[in-house]
């Protein structure tokens, strides 16, 4: 059994993360205002994904977890992406 020394994140780290998240949120809202047509959704999703990965790594301490858990989280998101992609093989070609 592995000895579990848990990582302690400092308050300043948490604050920094929050500020970055808020900035990204603002960017998202502003980016919608400039009309990018079909790309808006893509952009919004990319920004959301960045935010989500920040929450995962810092707030949810993934950065300090073992490799296995990180792989699992990555794998789960990947699996979901593949499922959506396969569903769209149907809808895109119809």
């Amino acid at each position, binding site marked *: 059994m592995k000895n579990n020394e848990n990582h302690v994140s400092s308050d300043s780290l948490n604050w920094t993360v929050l500020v970055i998240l808020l900035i990204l949120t603002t960017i998202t809202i502003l980016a919608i205002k400039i009309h990018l047509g079909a790309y808006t959704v893509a952009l919004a999703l990319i920004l959301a994904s960045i935010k989500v990965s920040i929450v995962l790594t810092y707030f949810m301490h993934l950065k300090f977890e073992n490799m*296995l858990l990180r792989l699992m989280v990555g794998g*789960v998101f990947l*699996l979901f992406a593949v*499922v959506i992609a*396969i*569903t769209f*093989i*149907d809808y895109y*070609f*119809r």
Partner: protein
Amino acid sequence: MTNSSTSEPLNYLNHKTGLWSWLSSTDHKRIGLMYMYTITIFFCTAAILGLLMRIEKLTPGQTIMTAQTYNGMFTIHGIIMIFIVVIPGLAAVFGNFFLPIMIGAKDVAFPKLNLFSWYVFIAGAMLGLYSQFANGHSPDTGWTFYVPYSASASSNVVIALTAAFVLGFASILTGLNFIVTIHRMRAPGMTWFRMPLFPWSLYATAWIQLLATPIVGITLLMVIAERTLHIGFFDPALGGDPVLYQHLFWIYSHPAVYVMILPAMGVVTEIFPTFSQKPVFGYVPIVFSSLAIALVGYFVWGHHMFTSGISYESRWFFSFLTFLVAIPSAIKVFNWLSTMYGGSVDLKPPLLFAISFIFLFTIGGFTGLTLGSLATNIQLHNTDFVVAHFHYIIFGGMGFAFFAAIHYWFPKIYGRMYNFKWANISWGFLFVGFNLLYFPLFVMGIQGMPRRYFDYDPKFQTGEMLSTIGAFILIIGLIIMISNLVYGSRRGAIAPANPWHGVTLEWQIPSPPPHENFDEIPVITHEPYRFDHPYTK
């Protein structure tokens, strides 16, 4: 060994008695048995419904029941068999009982959660039964709940949907528990590749349970929302998409079929080495084929929808992947045969059931391939051929594996032995009855006899009749088998700790196992299934 003041040594069965000591027990072995008893009761109920359906089909037109009853009957037969019997089935019964023992742990990671899942399971099962008898008539949508029919049918569909939802939740919790158990509770020295193969198959299964079940959960919720709140995701009149429902349903339900078969494969993988006294052939390929089945099985759901008007591109894509999942299954079959080859093969009842598993699974698998091929699927979709395919693979595969498992681990569970002669006789009835029951359905399916048909063209009568006769032979076998086991569990001869000379950990402890499995946690020094090396220190 335990104290000697009592005549019988203390074990998990007698260290505490009384109904409440069972209902409140967090002991994985007792929970496993509680699953076994409840599942058996539900199995018999649903099986009797199956028999009634067969009697109805003895003659064209109405034989013993109305169309309404028949439609309700195959629905509830399907719901019970799928959601209550085979999906939990092996994992909840033998997984619970033997997974911790086989990896050298005292219990699962979350024992209370384990008991909680059983209660959730019971709640779901009760709801399922209730949907049959509640006001109005029983649900008649088929176990697939296809919209728009299920969104409008004036029956207790909402209750049945809720039941399936709740059962899914129980399944998720069991899967979660197993994954954590396997990750965190293996005995010292038991590296991943020293783990026996039944736990491996449960590991692959548990991931499917965990990651596929929520999708059907939310889908059923959407149908409930559709019925109660008129949201209309799937209602074409409101712009909804009925085919989208089918996608979501099968995204879960195809992987779910591997939830049924993977533990079954795990069981027989334990049986072949033991009864041949020979190491399992190709341990690593078997592990990876389980994982591959779990993974690729996730991407083939569309093969249930080949005629639903999905795009041409996705049809061939799904067909292609469907063929690919056959490969890991093929690898396993060949590995099992090679495990026996050259061994010292002892044809005891567990092995008898295990080799019939191979036979029936092969037939079921190949007919699966026939269904996976685009051209032939067009002819066979929703015909009796499909019904025969999945009975062969579920009942013939998973069901016979269950029978094999109970005959294999019986002496460990109860510390007693059943009668071999009667076990063989019951096998005879089961095997003959089974094939007579389902083989004619293949033929009729090819000829175009649709499934879920209350009535049929008289030209199919011979086949339907043979099939009904088969059901009666099968039931005889089942009754003999169950009686033999029940009798054995109470009166059978006392069984030694290791009657089959197995090497995995469950055979290293007394029968029945003591309350906390091991007096001392074993230390693993070697890969399993080595009959010339000790497994533990």
